[in-house]
């Protein structure tokens, strides 16, 4: 535990604190830092524009998270129910596509979805003659891209607690008269909330910071909040404002995450059930 905390302190806390502290200074005229204390950057953060972008990107990331969690959980469940020997194989195949490059995977989606793309061709081949459906450069395409790229992370996260769920608990539930569905909802699901929460956090944080997918599949029409920070640091060369935006983002997400962690912890209790491991 100590080495990990030391690592995080030395290579995250300290450096990030140094950079985030820039939020209290002024942007120099040429993009450097002018070391006069100011709170104006935080004032700028409060512009409704940024709140709007935050909400919109949170909505997109949230939708992607929801979908990814539903699909990913189902997949993890199916994997955990497969014979033990096959489980690692399935997990491996779930992540393998993602050892190729993000950019070319996204291009593959473009090939599928664009107006002259494979799906359109397929429709035409089946005799469809109308206007090709507009699938690319929509919010749907962005969400699909995010779901696609982060689905394996949900699968991995959900698999972790599902892999050793005590089967007797589900049996006890069935025995007490619960249907398979109710058993799932009231016993299996709550006990695997930690995995769902972890998976959801992964999709959400990775999505909200993503810029390749909104740019390529969304046609640049959508902007994630992470991208806004990126733009301040690099495009606008406005580190102080970037730092202020980042701090706001980090603060909001931390609050949400810790509230969620607390809730999940409470929901799942400490599942020290001997049979879960025995």
């Amino acid at each position: 535990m100590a080495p990990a905390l030391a690592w995080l302190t030395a290579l995250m806390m300290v450096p990030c604190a140094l950079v985030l502290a820039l939020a209290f200074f002024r942007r120099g005229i040429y993009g450097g830092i002018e070391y006069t204390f100011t709170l104006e950057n935080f004032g700028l953060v409060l512009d409704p524009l940024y709140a709007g972008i935050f909400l919109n990107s949170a909505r997109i990331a949230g939708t992607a998270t929801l979908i990814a969690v539903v699909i990913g959980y189902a997949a993890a469940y199916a994997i955990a129910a497969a014979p033990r020997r096959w489980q690692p194989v399935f997990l491996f195949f779930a992540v393998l596509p993602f050892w190729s490059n993000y950019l070319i995977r996204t291009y593959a989606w473009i090939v599928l979805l664009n107006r002259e793309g494979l799906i359109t061709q397929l429709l035409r081949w089946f005799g469809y003659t109308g206007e090709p459906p507009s699938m690319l450069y929509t919010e749907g395409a962005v969400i699909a891209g995010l779901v696609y790229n982060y689905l394996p992370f949900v699968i991995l996260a959900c698999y972790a607690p599902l892999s050793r769920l005590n089967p007797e608990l589900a049996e006890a539930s069935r025995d007490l008269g619960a249907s398979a569905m109710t058993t799932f909802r009231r016993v299996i699901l709550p006990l695997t909330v930690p995995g769902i929460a972890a998976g959801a956090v992964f999709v959400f944080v990775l999505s909200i910071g993503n810029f390749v997918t909104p740019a390529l599949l969304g046609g640049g029409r959508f902007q994630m909040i992470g991208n806004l920070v990126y733009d301040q640091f690099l495009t606008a060369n406005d580190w102080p404002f970037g730092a202020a935006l980042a701090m706001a983002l980090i603060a909001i997400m931390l609050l949400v995450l810790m509230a969620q962690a607390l809730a999940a912890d409470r929901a799942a209790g400490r599942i020290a059930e001997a049979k879960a491991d025995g």
Partner: protein
Amino acid sequence: ADLVISNWDGYMAPDAMAAFKAATGVSGEVVVHATNEEIMGKLVASGGKGYDVVFVSSPFAEVLNKLGLIETIDHAKVPNLANLYPEAANLSHDVGNKFSVPYTWGTTGLCYRSDLVKTEPASWNDLLAPSDALKGKTTMLATDRWLLAAGQLAKGYSVNETDPAKLAEVKDLLISAKKTLLAYDDTTFYSKLVSGEALMVQAWDGWCNYGIAENPQIKYTIPKEGSDLWVDTMVVMKASANKDAAFQFINFMLDAKNHAWAAQNIDYKVPNKPAMESLPADFLAKFPNMAMPVAELVKFEQLRDVGDAQRDYSKIVSEIKAAQ
């Protein structure tokens, strides 16, 4: 130590470093960066340690200079500067090539499918307010300054305009244009033309050439309101430990033969008079924009660092991107 050069991948002749070594005995390696912004950020954060020569677009060179990160060009060590067009030694961002040496230059215009677009586009408004046939089949560059430039040019404003009222007009224009746009794209727009997904796109001339290479029906035009003059430059880092070799490298690149060879590899115009004059006819025929007269080119205004107005610029871009 070896010379370290940072460039976009594919933005030099593939054999450039080998030829440089053969010619000078100095070995070097090329590392790649994805965007101006990223290499800028990296140079700013690290003070540029480790890099000798970096390729960046002119506004970024300007900022690097203002931040004191780049070295003054020692003209004595770069005799081939003489090969540059006189206009290229007088670029507004760096009159007299004090801190940057232009490597390529060109325009930003409209790249389109001549076989599918009925009338040849003539104005930025043909892009910003397209005919019904083009609606949903146009793209614009996503990079903030060039995105705004299309609106600024259409409105007849400077591409470095800082008047908030005028910028607001530009913003409104671009927001309305967004509704007819297929996408903002500065990476795959030319393949969209090839596939027919898009019919007209805002493009850098050289990049349009990549489309032309795939499909000769693709054509490039500069709208009547004009273009910007973009310049990609080579700069030498102040932190460089091999400045002599760095100048030697720049000098090597400016050699007429080498620069011409680069142009033929990357399909971009180079500001090198003997080099341009040596380009083969078939190459010029294939890419008509290569032959654009320098005098016409330099009429256009360069993108410049806009100082504190940058905040307004980036906010406007955010507003456009956030608009529904």
